[in-house]
């Protein structure tokens, strides 16, 4: 058990290092001469000025030394974005509350709703309710989140004035405002996942219905509902939890970039997009590493949970 977890962690750390190198390399390609000195110097800079800036920021050192320095800075919290002169970790911390509120709220909503819909669709397989839910899932999976966000903004916020048009209000400032501003983003982000997860759960439950242990449970005299909840669901939920862990981690790391942008939530996702636009290597590297760490940690927790629930996995 412990070896399983430790091995996974080591693999993921190696992965994170490679990812950060990859991001760094991408930006070395992106920037002229591989560093932002020309950008920082301004439009009318002379080569001498550019050279001065290079020396000052350490761009004339070999690439791998630059990379190591950047990584060191990021992890000690001393990384300063060249473009905006802000401390990168502070910037990320500023965007975190919005992203976390969005991620956690949406995560809970989509998990519970997909379990509900998936179970109903499986129980009523082939009947009217199932077909309706399947159609809804199909629409959910086929709709770009920012399009759905735009529709919500236009109708619910603009025309009917039920919710505000965007922006984020911290919880500490006004719980009502916080909730009001987050309802639409939660729904928008969840729609895509609900569509996908409910279908996965539905086929998972339907697969388990034919298994022997369900027959045994019925033979023992349990009611359909008991069979479903105490036996079928426990097995069918396992792939759902693994997927949920991965997706949730990605959303925390700024994977909900589209939703955040449409609703102006100023979260980590928007920060990521802005930093790419500004060619801000350091911020993007920090965000990508953050996502990676979130994926590792949450993924490990979820894997341990799943291994605990299903002993067969521990032996794999």
């Amino acid at each position, binding site marked *: 058990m412990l070896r399983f977890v430790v091995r996974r962690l080591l693999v993921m750390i190696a*992965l994170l290092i*490679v*990812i950060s190198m*990859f*991001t760094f390399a*991408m930006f070395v*390609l*992106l920037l002229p001469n591989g560093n932002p000195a020309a950008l920082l110097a301004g439009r009318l800079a002379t080569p001498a000025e550019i050279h001065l800036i290079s020396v000052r920021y350490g761009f004339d050192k070999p690439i791998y030394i630059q990379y190591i320095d950047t990584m060191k800075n990021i992890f000690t919290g001393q990384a300063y974005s060249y473009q905006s002169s802000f401390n990168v970790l502070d910037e990320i911390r500023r965007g975190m509350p919005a992203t976390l509120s969005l991620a956690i709220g949406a995560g809970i909503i989509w998990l519970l709703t997909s379990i509900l819909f998936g179970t109903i669709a499986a129980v009523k397989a082939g009947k009217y309710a199932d077909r309706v839910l399947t159609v809804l899932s*199909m*629409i959910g*999976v*086929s*709709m*770009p*989140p*920012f*399009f759905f966000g*735009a*529709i919500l*903004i*236009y109708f619910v916020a*603009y025309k009917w004035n039920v919710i505000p048009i965007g922006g984020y209000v911290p919880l500490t400032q006004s719980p009502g405002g916080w909730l009001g501003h987050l309802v639409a983003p939660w729904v928008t982000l969840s729609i*895509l996942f609900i569509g*996908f997860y409910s279908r*996965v759960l539905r*086929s998972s439950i339907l*697969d388990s219905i034919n298994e022997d242990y369900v027959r045994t449970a019925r033979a023992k005299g349990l009611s359909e509902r008991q069979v479903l909840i105490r036996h079928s669901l426990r097995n069918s939920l396992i792939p759902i939890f693994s*997927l949920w862990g991965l997706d949730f981690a*990605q959303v925390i*790391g*700024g*994977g909900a*970039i*589209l939703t955040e*942008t*449409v609703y102006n939530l100023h979260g980590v996702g928007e920060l*990521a*997009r802005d930093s*790419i*636009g500004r*060619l801000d290597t350091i911020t*993007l590297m920090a*965000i*990508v590493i953050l*996502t*990676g760490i979130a*994926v590792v940690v949450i993924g490990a927790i979820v894997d341990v949970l799943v291994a605990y629930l299903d002993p067969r996995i521990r032996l794999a």
Partner: protein
Amino acid sequence: MSVISGPGSAAVEEVGGGFDAGFEGEGQLPPGIGPWKLAWRRLRRNRVAMFFGFVFLLVVVLCLLAPVYSQDIAHISPDYGNPTGTFTLNGKTQFVLNTVGVPIGPTWNVNHFFFGADDQGRDVAVRLLYGGRTSLMIGAVATLITMIIGTLLGIVAGFFRGWWDAILRSANDVVWTYPAVLLGITVGTVLNIHGIGPLHGTSALVPAVVIGFVYIPYVFRPVRGQVLTLRERDFIDAARQQGLSNWQIMISEILPNLSSTIVVFVPLIMANAILLEAGLTFLGAGVQPPNASWGTMISDGINNDIPTAFHNVLVPGIMLVIAVMSINIFGDGLRDALDPRSKVRVGR
């Protein structure tokens, strides 16, 4: 070539058994029905999937006919912005954009601004069809890239194992862990600025290649997994004894057995590719102006027209949802037809 795990192989075995029993001792067996034909029959019986398949075909045909619509019916090109102009509708002269700059909404008149105008005075309907060509082309090219490279790498990794497998799997995990949208934006921005060969600047090939690249892990993993099981089978040993080289085995023995997996992935990847193109364009890293695509139309609509001319968001958006949904539903039907017990699933 022995197809063990082709489409509906379970059904083929049953049919074979039935025929054998009936014609025992009669000499020649009548030809059985191949697995692909059986699958096609199953698909045809699935009315919903066939309907949406036709819907998608209709969308494709409409978009391919964009020049016809543009030249012969609407008499306006997709890039022709006419912000200050007027046109006559039912005898009345209408402004393309009214006095405060709000573009006209859908006129439902096939000859003039059927879906209205966008904020630069261009005809939305014409742009929609031309944009559809771009979006569909990007989807198709991306899918092609993903399927070819993903399958090739999957086969190589699964068949040879050892070093190849380790390297390919690590590369795969790196791409897989990177959030898709961020990866798309980063690589897209790099290619937009620097470019490699024909891929640079505003070429619509850039988002196609980027999206194709992003989805490779989704194909690589299942293919590799299946190849791992396949290579243990006896018919691989038999082929080796016949003297086939590694590459010959991979192409003539393993590849055909992967066919149903591969076929099922194509609509899934294409649907996701079109969605990702819209997303990347919205974030500025996909199709660049003045090229039109459904993504650019939706983002322009969102950025400029939400309070006043919402049709600029609705029209391309609904078109995109219809197209993607048709592909998804048809893809589901395809999967059910090829193997009713299949557990193939792909992330979004």
